[in-house]
């Protein structure tokens, strides 16, 4: 008899709940702070640029900016959830309690990434709802917006998990977060349309996977985007599959988890 990858649903749900409970115990840090930070960006950019910049015809700069800020919050918080939780558990040794349990690598992956998606969604929804106080915002495709937010949470949750599996120290994780994730999220069309960039930077921006998540979400909210939403969806799904496969491969091998 070979153990089925989904035969411990209660175990998987418990691990998912533990990851959710963990961020709910520090909501000021994990939910409130990123929402307030996004609103500060919004406040500053609205005051400075609202009257001077129009990215898409008929859409004010604040309305353009909000979907980007929502997705930046989703991206950064989904990554932070899996990466910080797993690296902490590795470093303080408490991961052993999960590893001793009869959980498959698929259940482990789904529990961690599911919690990251939920945190991303909660922060994103918080930013969106709070931002409604700043301007009138359409919502062209609600289901599309939720789908892109969830997919971004999945991609970044998986990337955070992958990073924490590979990292041995907080220092390594912090370096990746500050020098790769944050710059990629800032340089992904949150604050501008890539069509306004010089050709070289435009082409470089199209290599940034975060751009497609944000552009797809922006299309779902505003009904306009830089590239076709199908392309954004395809590329986001591709990254989700690639990173998930990498996580599952390493978890199944026990790489840097089971020595």
């Amino acid at each position: 008899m070979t153990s089925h990858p989904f035969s411990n649903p209660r175990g998987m749900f418990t691990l998912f709940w533990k990851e959710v409970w963990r961020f709910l115990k520090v909501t000021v840090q994990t939910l409130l702070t990123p929402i307030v930070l996004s609103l500060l960006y919004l406040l500053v950019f609205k005051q400075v640029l609202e009257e001077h910049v129009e990215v898409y015809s008929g859409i004010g700069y604040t309305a353009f900016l909000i979907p980007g800020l929502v997705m930046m919050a989703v991206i950064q918080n989904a990554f932070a959830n899996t990466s910080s939780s797993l690296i902490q558990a590795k470093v303080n040794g408490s991961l052993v309690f999960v590893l001793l349990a009869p959980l498959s690598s698929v259940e482990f992956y789904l529990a961690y990434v599911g919690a990251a998606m939920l945190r991303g969604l909660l922060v994103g929804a918080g930013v969106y709802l709070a931002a409604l106080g700043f301007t009138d915002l359409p919502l062209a495709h609600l289901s599309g917006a939720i789908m892109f937010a969830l997919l971004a949470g999945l991609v970044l949750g998986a990337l955070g998990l992958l990073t924490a599996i590979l990292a041995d120290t907080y220092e390594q994780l912090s370096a990746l977060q500050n020098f790769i994730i944050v710059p990629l999220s800032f340089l992904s069309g949150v604050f501008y349309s890539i069509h306004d960039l010089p050709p070289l930077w435009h082409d470089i921006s199209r290599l940034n996977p975060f751009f497609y998540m944000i552009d797809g979400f922006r299309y779902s909210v505003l009904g306009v985007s830089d590239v076709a939403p199908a392309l954004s969806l395809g590329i986001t799904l591709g990254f989700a599959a690639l990173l998930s496969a990498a996580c599952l491969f390493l978890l199944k091998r026990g790489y840097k988890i089971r020595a």
Partner: protein
Amino acid sequence: MPPARGHTRRTFVPMNSAVTISHLHKHYASVHALQGVDFSIARGEFFGLLGPNGAGKSTLINIMAGLTRADAGHVSILGHDVIRHYREARGALGVVPQELLYDPFFTVREVLRLQSGYFGRGRENAAWLDELLATLSLSDKADTSIHALSGGMKRRVLIALALVHKPQVLVLDEPTAGVDTELRRMLWEFTRRLHREGVTVVLTTHYLAEAETLCDRIAILDHGRLAALDSKTALLQRYPYRMLCLSVSDPAPALPPALLPLLVMRDAQQIKLRLHKQDDSIAGVLDALRDAGFSITDLYTQEPGLEEVFLQITATPVLSGDAA
């Protein structure tokens, strides 16, 4: 989960085996941490796993628990291979780790509930968790963050965590390291109770007197190999010496030359001699001492303990993997 490398031999698992370890090898870089370790532990045994630091005990336990992958060989718990049937194997095994590990985010009750959930247990397990808290004197700390507990209390939490799913095999890795006398006594009473209730207990400890008191059978690992595996009684019989301790009047004369090879310790009024159980006669030694002018005021003999056996075994070349 893939099988361990070198997964080519079919392993015979005896029906009454709690733990079966077959031809186990593990390397860390150039260190061959386990070199073909091969033995089994019967159901219901109180089993001691001893060895000096670096002997491979923790590596072996980690492979049993699925925390480390073997390079070759197999381990099964109650007949379930720890790789191929990891769910059944882990469900049957409880491990109390050596280090005081904990998640600082949660209270004692919360971590017990979570751990119970990881093993697929729900609300029906709540009464058992309460019983564990009460038995381990943790009830009044149930809603305290583990972070705020003393070292002894954290150790109790680790024991409770290992037992949330009522495992049939319990591994205690150095459970009394740094533990005060009261907790140690409580811990051993509790472990004995579990053993009486049918749990197979595997104990590693540096306190050899503990192993001598508690264990039915003992394996000694040395340099990654099985150096000895026998019942406690048989192991103790392996050491062919006893100590003869004498109190003598002061000042005592010089020891006869024939007794000098037996001398272990001497001061003004005490002499300790090591006598071979077969070759040296106590009566002969006493006669020789009296002839040399010694006035003996008291004497007693000291039978060897596990410590002497352990030191003798780990100081000599190890046996081959099949020796035991």
